[in-house]
């Protein structure tokens, strides 16, 4: 059997300067505990019309190796029809899906982080552009809601 083994380089040339890097990663500091913030985040994601597919712990074994927190998760979410459309038409985005938010405790606050999909996935066709712009808008709105989430 001849084993074909080819490296495909998807030629998505992203012209980004090393210095224009503000807001490539968006972050929010939530003045609230980890469990409260986690609950609220899941609500807010759903309120924006997305389905939560899974929460992944990325901290298994962290406390054994000296960390004082094991409160580190990745929350995956998305919309099924968008997911199917992208798999069909833009399989090069598969490894970046579903969308995700990193959430971790820092003292009594909780930090959320996400990369800006609009910066990662350029250039794009009409429909993809539409989806990604919507993601960007929704993520901004989700983060805004989280910024406003404080205990009194």
């Amino acid at each position, binding site marked *: *059997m*001849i*084993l074909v*083994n*080819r490296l*495909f*380089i*998807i030629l998505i*040339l*992203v012209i*980004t300067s*090393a*210095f*224009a*890097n*503000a*807001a*490539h*990663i968006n*972050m929010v*500091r939530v*003045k609230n505990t980890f469990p409260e913030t986690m609950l609220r985040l899941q609500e807010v994601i759903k309120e924006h019309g997305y389905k*939560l*597919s*899974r929460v*992944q712990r*990325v901290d*298994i074994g*962290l406390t054994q*190796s000296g*960390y*004082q927190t094991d409160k*580190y*998760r*990745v929350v*995956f979410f*998305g*919309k099924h029809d968008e*997911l*199917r459309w992208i*798999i*069909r038409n833009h*399989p*090069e*985005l*598969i*490894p*970046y899906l*579903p969308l*995700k938010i*990193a959430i971790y405790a*820092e*003292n009594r606050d909780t*930090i959320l*982080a996400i*990369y*800006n999909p609009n*910066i*990662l996935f350029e250039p794009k066709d009409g429909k993809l552009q539409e989806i990604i712009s919507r993601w960007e808008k929704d993520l901004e709105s989700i983060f805004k809601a989280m*910024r406003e989430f404080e205990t009194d």
Partner: protein
Amino acid sequence: MKNLGISFLKALPSIIAALGMSSLFLNQWAYASDIGAELYEQHCAACHGIRGQGGTGVPLALDDFQREVTDQFLFNTIKHGRPGRVMPSYAMLGEEQISAIVKHIRGFSNVKAPAFDDTPITGDTKNGKSLFMQHCAACHGEQGQGAAGTGVTFSRPRDYPILAPALNNPGFLTSATDQDIKRTLVGGRKGTPMRSFIEAGLKEKEINDIVSYIRSFENNPLKPVHVDEPLVIEYESDADLTTVIDNIKRAAQGKNFRLIRVQNLDYGFVDEKAESGKEVIIYFCNFKLLNQALKVDSRVGLFLPCRITAYEQDGKVKVIAINPRRLSHLFNNNELDRLCNEMYKTYVEILEEATF
């Protein structure tokens, strides 16, 4: 008396104008501090803390810090950021917005903003280098590259509670004048590991020598590390999907990764029975690598867990992964770039092995 009266009358219009101006100014100030707070919360609080107490970034509220940095230094630091040291550049904000942020930062402390002259400092660079090696390199690195990791330690074990910034950083060197640097060495920053080197016994001349050595880092500025990187790494295989998945598992384990989970890409979006089964994710992890990565950037969760996806489309089986070098680019973190370079090679090896 008479004269004074007349000159008062003469001056009246300008007094009225001045009063008008000052209320305008006050309004603007109130406006600016509102905007400043809003912008700070949006752009800076996640790293520097809502009241400037620090986090991924260094503290901004400490009295010594506020005593030692000019508004101009703050302005320039925000504008240029610290390329490769996590702190982003905010060049896309306008001058007014940056000034509003500076004003907001000043509100963290009652200390008045200092003003230093900008006379360059001359000193013996060679002597400065040997003093630097002796007194500074342990924290700031032999090339002034800064500590491994940044900002304040909360839950991540590190050598110091606050990590030393990079001094060879073009963003730092552009923002700080010689006098700025000197003030920090003379005064130290109480509440951080950075002490006063006058109190530590150095003479003013020796401080000048060190300043001129730090300034000499400018002669070999860091090159921008980033090149255009493809979004993903992808290989094609002749084998069927199940075989390829097994190959990926074996290859990852062979590279000391522990398998965490295998699932369909559409898991959680539809009923288990309705999952397509044509796009399968293999998650794996290496705790040592994870620890290393968390030490240099707490945001690495966005890379995690390690993952390769195998999918079948139009009769072809492909395996695909993110390109860690491409994603790392977004983090503005040289150390993370190095780790991601390693990660890139590992992904390529696993993918090659799985499709060979």
